[in-house]
């Protein structure tokens, strides 16, 4: 694995129960220490390369997540930490949970667990570093950048539209 630079990490607590958040913080503390990889927990989206999202998306925070994501410079990687960020988890059936982080922004690495263990999280971050390197190469060579949240939204809508028409034709055929 080639780690070409020290990636900075931004953490946003979606609607998580704090369990994953304290594990994210614990992985920057001495026992697990992601600073070994040159990773620093920053508070500013404009300095960040990796976005760690915990918790599901709800109607209040979906625009906040979009905004934070769009403010991050390219190349960037998104990590969904914990099962709630992956698909809603135990709160999937709650009325105010729309689903996982990938409902609003594109996610590169999914790290399940309730709460996510720091070891799993570090493994996810190391995987994210590889993706970050790849994205950087693509960005430098072809100027390829990540989708913005509005492009991603359009893509999701398009996909939903496609599957709907497919279902319609299926229904009419049968």
């Amino acid at each position, binding site marked *: 694995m080639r780690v070409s630079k020290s990636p900075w990490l931004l953490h946003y607590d979606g609607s998580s129960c*704090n*369990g994953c958040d304290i594990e994210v913080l614990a992985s920057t*503390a001495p026992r697990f220490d992601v600073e070994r990889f040159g990773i620093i927990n*920053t508070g500013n989206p404009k300095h960040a390369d990796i976005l760690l999202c915990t918790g599901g998306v709800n109607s209040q925070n979906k625009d906040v997540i979009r905004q934070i994501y769009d403010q991050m410079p390219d190349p960037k990687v998104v990590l969904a930490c914990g099962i709630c960020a992956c698909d809603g988890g135990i709160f999937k059936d709650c009325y105010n949970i729309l689903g996982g982080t990938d409902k609003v922004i594109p996610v590169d690495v999914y790290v399940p667990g309730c709460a996510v263990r720091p070891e799993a999280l570090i493994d996810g971050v190391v995987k994210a570093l590889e993706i970050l390197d790849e994205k950087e190469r693509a960005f430098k060579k072809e100027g390829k950048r990540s989708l913005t949240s509005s492009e991603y939204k359009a893509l999701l809508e398009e996909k939903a539209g496609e599957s709907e028409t497919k279902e319609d034709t299926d229904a009419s055929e049968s």
Partner: protein
Amino acid sequence: MAGKRSVIPFGPQHPVLPEPIHIDLVVEDEKVIEAVPSIGFVHRGLESLVTKKDFNDMVYVAERICGICSYGHGYGYVDAIEHIMNIQLPDRCDHIRTILFELSRMHSHILWMGLMADAFGFESLFMETWKIREKVLDMLEAATGGRVIFSILKIGGLRHDVSDEMLKGFLPVLESIEESIRNCENTFLNDTAVMSRLKGIGYLSAEEAARLGCTGPFLRASGVAFDNRLRGYAAYGKIDFDVITSGEGDSYGRCKVRIGEIYQSVSIIRQCIETMPEGEVSVPVKGFPNGEYMTVIEQPRGEACYYVHASGKKFIERMRVRTPTFANVPGLVKTLAGCDLADVPILVVAVDPCISCTER
């Protein structure tokens, strides 16, 4: 000459507080005139899950109200159901529950010390306290299997026993934790630079704290001796402890109370291990709960109430939780008004806010 008023947003994504709360700070020059909180970023609608999940499975949901005070939330829910169903728990179960409760209080307070150190810009102290916290988490992991969310509680007792050898093995670890906390305490309470950031910041008098309905260490730091553990639930009735208060009423006092409570927890755990009775840790449970009950317990952050209404079916009808941070928000808004802009993170963290509990 009075300056122009402007509004500075604080959160929902902020370097100091990992949790999303939004506060509009109305500032005039460097002084905060008014703080207007707005919430709802973590609202999941968790209480409504009672109509979709079996009352036994709800224990897991209750534990996930908050990941920091998760054990207490599970305890409150289980305790309410056990009272409705008239279940008498074995003594050993009560003692082990008390030990786990105090361990989770320790981990919560040590975590808070770290966040506080981070808030006044002492990064290495943050690292130091979180290093100590890992020892507490190791004990919890050995006893329950989980680092953050334990899932050892069930209606009618505990899922599995914690052996006497393991509990005895905790004693030297507790001693080493006490020693390391003592080192940190010296920096927190006697360091001139730290003291200048804490002393006199966010003063709240005893009358005011009581009138605003504050609770937990926030209230006790203003000199009001109020602790729900004195009610004697679990094994607290058989254990000797004093309520820790401080007359300062400022951020320094809040630090002092919480650090004092860590030593108190160690002493409670020691007493529990010494007087640990033999026997089973759970009793068989039959049937469905029918009736209503309100449990009040002392969480690391203060008083928490759990109301359960059941009508003899598989699903309970209503669950309601009132959390300590919710009670402390009026106190926080009061201390924020009139403070310096640079002190806002300290004041917010000094309350030990848990937004996830508050909004559920």
